[in-house]
């Protein structure tokens, strides 16, 4: 028993750093296997860029789950909607997209991304009110309702835009690569990494430095107590849900530009990827989600290079391996 005159030192909380180091360890371990330093560098940059994009898409999902125990199976719809909204802005402005000026390009990309986030976020409001609120606290119905929502959203995209794949070319100034020595680094990947880092840092800053962020972290741990302190957690949750949906939309735009095409079913494939990331990271953990996204992207890129056939199931293998090690993901949120 500790009494009031106890020693000044608290037991230091054990820093659980191994998961943080995992991506770096994986990257270094791959270096000898890949052999060529320049290929390794290219693959690593590709992994980081892809990982950042997946993180952007997955972050909202994991936060929403952590805060309210709500898992949105329709999360992929926000991704696809974001991508389609971006085409609405970018295709009519094609001359500016094709202009060979970074400033002009960014001047059209920024509003496209903002519009995508706004529409996805607004759709998030509707989904939360119509599909999630009525069955709040009932997991089974939640899964069914949001799955239904995914179907409806995807089919509505088909009905509005047609079943064909819409090409979405990258702006001219973002094409091509920087060549440093014998290493080629695609410009767009650099941009994707930058945006991903900004989003990650932004989320961390909000979570750690603002009262809203403190409330979210406290709510992830104990919703009831947050309410007992006088905060309306439902409203907080709605806000987080909308922001998460908006981020999924942003991720959708970035992914569409990365693939240079948009398709209504893109949400399906990405949902699976995003789920794997969220599971690996530990449901509800933003840090875990970030690491999970990097790992998934690395395994896909390195695996695709070394053993192309394996790439098909590499995600599942990674998930199995991680869950064998930690059954609740890299960073399990304490209260569940």
């Amino acid at each position, binding site marked *: 028993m500790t009494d009031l005159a106890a020693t000044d030192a608290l037991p230091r909380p054990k820093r659980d750093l191994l998961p943080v180091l995992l991506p770096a360890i994986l990257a270094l371990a791959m270096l000898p296997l890949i052999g060529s330093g320049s290929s390794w560098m290219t693959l690593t940059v590709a992994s980081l860029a892809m990982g950042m994009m997946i993180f952007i898409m997955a972050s909202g999902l994991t936060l929403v789950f952590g805060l309210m125990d709500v898992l949105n199976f329709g999360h992929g719809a926000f991704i696809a909607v974001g991508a389609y909204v971006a085409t609405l802005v970018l295709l009519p402005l094609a001359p500016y997209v094709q202009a060979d000026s970074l400033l002009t390009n960014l001047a059209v990309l920024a509003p496209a991304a903002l519009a995508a986030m706004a529409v996805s976020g607004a759709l998030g409001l509707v989904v939360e009110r119509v599909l999630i609120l009525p069955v709040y606290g009932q997991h089974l119905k939640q899964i069914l309702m949001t799955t239904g929502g995914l179907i409806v959203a995807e089919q509505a995209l088909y*009905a509005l835009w047609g079943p064909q794949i819409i090409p979405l070319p990258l702006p001219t100034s973002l094409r091509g690569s920087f060549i440093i020595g014998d290493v080629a680094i695609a410009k767009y990947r650099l941009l994707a990494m930058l945006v991903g880092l900004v989003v990650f840092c932004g989320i961390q800053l909000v979570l750690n430095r603002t009262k809203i962020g403190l409330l979210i972290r406290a709510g992830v741990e104990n919703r009831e107590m947050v309410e007992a302190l006088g905060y309306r957690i439902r409203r907080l949750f709605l806000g987080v849900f909308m922001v998460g949906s908006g981020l999924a939309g942003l991720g959708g735009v970035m992914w569409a530009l990365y693939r240079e095409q948009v398709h209504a079913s893109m949400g399906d494939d990405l949902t699976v990827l995003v789920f794997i990331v969220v599971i690996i990271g530990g449901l509800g953990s933003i840090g875990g989600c970030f690491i999970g996204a990097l790992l998934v992207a690395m395994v896909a890129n390195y695996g695709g290079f070394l053993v192309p056939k394996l790439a098909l199931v590499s995600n599942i293998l990674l998930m199995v391996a991680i869950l064998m090690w930690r059954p609740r993901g890299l960073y399990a949120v304490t209260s569940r």
Partner: protein
Amino acid sequence: MILSGDPPRSRVLSILLVVIIAALAVTPLLFPGAKAMNVATKICIFAALVASYDLLLGYTGTVSFAHTMFYGIGSYSIAIALYSMGPNWAAVAVGVAAGLPLAMLLALAIGLFSLRVEAIFFAMITLAVASAFLVLASQLSWLTGGEDGRSFQLPELLRPGTILIPQDWFGFAVNGRVLTYYLIFIACAAMILALLRVVNSPFGRVLQAIRENRFRAEALGFRTVFHLTYANCLAALVAASAGMLNALWLRYAGPDTSLSFAIMLDILLMVVIGGMGTIYGAIVGAVIFILAQNYLQALMGAASNAAADAGLPLLPGLLHPDRWLLWLGLLFIASVYFFPTGVVGRLRNPSRKPA
């Protein structure tokens, strides 16, 4: 008792079921056309498939997105065996002997792996595994035929050309196709009755106890992971068997007919519309859904054309037969919300308000 002491418990439902079963039993005699036969077969197979899914969703409260994977394993094992060994019964036996254990082992692995935690975890993991399996099936072309799938010949006895009872005996012909149909009909009926037995056994009661309150069931000393995994394996076995029957009927197995996510959604819809946790709901749901799918889509096409002719905006796109899923999705959400007990639940408790 053949119904395992769990009768339909509603006069309308009983009549409905008798009519459905009688209609399915006489379909080859009254409607020997290809379309009617295909619809009837699909109803039989899906009734069994959906009933097995109901064992999971309705009786244990776990959502699996991997049910089509097991269905696909069944389909492909028959298809690959018959494709590579030729149209003989040995190949059918090999397909069965390979497919069922494979489905069960996979179900066992997934169950032990992910049923320990929460329902939601299981749902996500099954989705991930099923999508990986779909990718595998469409990429390993040397084995599965890739996107094209595998077509094969049936053993002599089951071919349409084989006349077992000529028309002039009783006024209708019984050929290999009709025999296949009855084979499927009986197998599916047997599987549904077996499932009815399972859910009404002590084991089934434990499953329901777990669904109601997992912690209490655990506190009472039931090893919930074991029970859930067992249910998962049973469901997988039935699903794989249904897949085998499907392959036999179609003489083909491919990603679209046996593995696609769309089939998973169809199954979900049939369970919810029919009524979760009733087994009978699977039959009702399958009938409603498949009839609607086969006959309403034509109606939608007509409506879409009419809207296009009338120059209405947007409507032609929304009513296009390919947008069938859009309306199903809406129907799905509405039924989860307004009729969580489905048709069977409604017929049993007509007075109860929707939750």
